[in-house]
């Protein structure tokens, strides 16, 4: 499990109050019975943790799998790293 994936699973579990063992990459937020208010809190925690901004509205938010979310976060984290100035040696 990548560290991004692990963090996201942890956030979903904590914010939605569901057992982390129930979350799989293929689960959708709908499968996990996550309500909209929990969903926006999950997004907020993910953004805050990774210091990224997720797109404002994804029409497939409910039906998107957890894997889709992990991929999106990994992509945004990589883009942020690429945009950052190279470390001085």
């Amino acid at each position, binding site marked *: 499990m990548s560290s991004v994936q692990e963090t996201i699973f942890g956030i979903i579990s904590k914010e939605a109050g569901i057992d982390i063992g129930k979350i799989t990459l293929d689960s959708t937020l709908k499968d996990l019975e996550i*309500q*909209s*208010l929990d969903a*926006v809190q999950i*997004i*907020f925690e993910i953004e805050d943790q990774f210091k990224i*901004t997720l797109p*404002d*509205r994804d029409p497939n938010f409910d039906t998107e799998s957890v894997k889709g979310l992990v991929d999106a976060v990994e992509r945004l984290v990589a883009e942020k790293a690429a945009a950052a100035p190279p470390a001085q040696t």
Partner: protein
Amino acid sequence: MRRVAITGMGAINALGHDAATTWSAMREGRPAIGPIANIPSDLLNIKIAAEVRGFDPLAHFDSKRLILLDRVSQFALVAAREAIAQSGLEFRASGFGERTACIIGTGIGGENSHNEQSSRFYGDKNPRVHPLAIVRVMANAPACHVGMEFGLTGPSFAVVSACASANHAMAQAFDMLRSGKVDFAVAGGSEACVTVPTVKAWEAMRVTADDTCRPFCKQRRGMVLGEGAGIFVFEDYEHARSRGATILAEFSGAGMSADAGDIVLPSETGAARAIAAALADARLAADGVDYINAHGTGTPANDPTESKAIRRVFGSHADTVAVSSTKSMHGHALGAAGAIELVAAIGALRESIVPPTANFIDPDPDCDLDYVPNTARELPVRAALSNSFAFGGLNAVIALRRA
């Protein structure tokens, strides 16, 4: 029970600084949603709102007075002056002030002052907080300032129920008048909450649109924040008639309910109970209503739920009643929303013109009523409803009849 007349109307919002300008913009279906200009927008992801533009407080208040007034109280006073002037009532000179309630709703209160003081304290590390911060921020300030200016010494307070505050406030004033507790009321709602932190908070909830507000339409992307005030004068119907006042409409009923369910998700049955209660209170049959000014926020959740609630109460008449959301033009002014929207309901009753739902593209299969898309419609309106459904599941619906 006594009947209640509306004899004064005042408004300020993105569509205009008075009720007449507001109503003409509504009738023309002319939205006032645009790029945020009154506050810095560099930190905002959602860069649009329906702001009150070109408002110069010094044109309305001297600087000594202004220091006491948050924007929310300024709006309330501007609208109250218009409404009371139109009513022709001189509360101080006539001695009516003692028999007058002053009830003004607001969702948040003095948000601009709160933000300004927090910013000085935390941002500028300035340890001195302004001595008038408390009296500017308090949510009852709009009601107090209106009462002080006009000498209204009867029951006076604020009502807070988020996006239904104005309708709850006006319903309360209506009940007091009808029961004989007072003979007049000055009531409505005011809101001024377009600040950077508030817009950021709305962004975080992911319910605000980044393009414009398109209620009931398939392409809708959420609500657009607005601001402003609407204030009305209510009066014992017989009194208004005997003094020859212009009666704008009859306030004939109010219905309220709470979902006691979810803090954000609206409930069809909760909304339907408030609509049905307003009809019953006004002794109106569903087919006697020709226009509903919808809550119509443009969010994915509200619009289908509200449409179903209307259908549930109106039955087959749901297909013939005209329903529109003027939030498509003046945005969602939260605690002032119901008051600004009452201008639309009164305009429809008086001029037999139903204002449209602007910015409408394609219908949403989940919203299957007649939303009067984009163009106003000539239609005799005998009675109208105005819906407000707040976060927290608090619902308030007002019923008006043509005078």
